[in-house]
């Protein structure tokens, strides 16, 4: 069963035309915790990855691959880590549907190009950060 409609598949392909460097989508699942959602998440990620040869997928188990999960700071499932030339700290908890899907596609493009669209002022301020910052953004599909 496909998640993408013909219409949004075309949109995603168009966005992926701009991909530069390879992107790895690291998926964390755990069948005991949230089997259905994890399965949906894996299917969605594989479907998206199939739209560009620059995208690869690795599926890990939160309970088994603990060191990897800890390294990524992932402690919930389903989760997706979007990695480009380095781990930029892009994380998704939950199956990215609706509005989240747009963010997910944009995260892939950003991780591939490594070119954030921010003002010079913002970049300078961020470069001066003395501590780690975690920005959690809660949203719903609609």
């Amino acid at each position: 069963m496909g998640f993408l409609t013909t219409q949004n598949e075309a949109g995603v392909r168009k966005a992926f035309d701009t991909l530069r460097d390879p992107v790895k989508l690291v998926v964390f699942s755990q069948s005991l915790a949230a089997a259905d959602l994890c399965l949906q998440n894996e299917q969605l990620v594989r479907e998206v990855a199939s739209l560009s040869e620059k995208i690869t997928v690795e599926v890990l188990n939160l309970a088994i691959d603990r060191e990897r999960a800890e390294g990524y700071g992932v402690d919930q499932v389903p989760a997706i880590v979007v990695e480009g030339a380095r781990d930029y700290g892009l994380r998704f908890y939950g199956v990215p549907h609706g509005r989240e899907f747009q963010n997910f596609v944009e995260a892939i493009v950003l991780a591939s190009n490594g070119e954030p669209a921010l003002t010079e002022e913002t970049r300078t301020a961020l470069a001066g950060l003395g501590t780690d910052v975690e920005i959690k953004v809660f949203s719903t599909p609609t």
Partner: protein
Amino acid sequence: MRLAQHMAVASERVRATAIEATQFPELSQAYQVMAVPKVVINDRVQFEGALPEPEFLGAVLQAAGSDTAR
């Protein structure tokens, strides 16, 4: 989420975590998510709705307590 993602890519210090609120009810409850998008930075600074870039940056700097940031 857009600004958070761009900031994460711009700085090795910043991580952007998107959370689908309906799939994580306990987490949403813990962070008192009543409206979305809700942004929580370092569990210290939070706001609802989208902010323009300068205000969003201000929230990040406030959460980081970064008097050193210029």
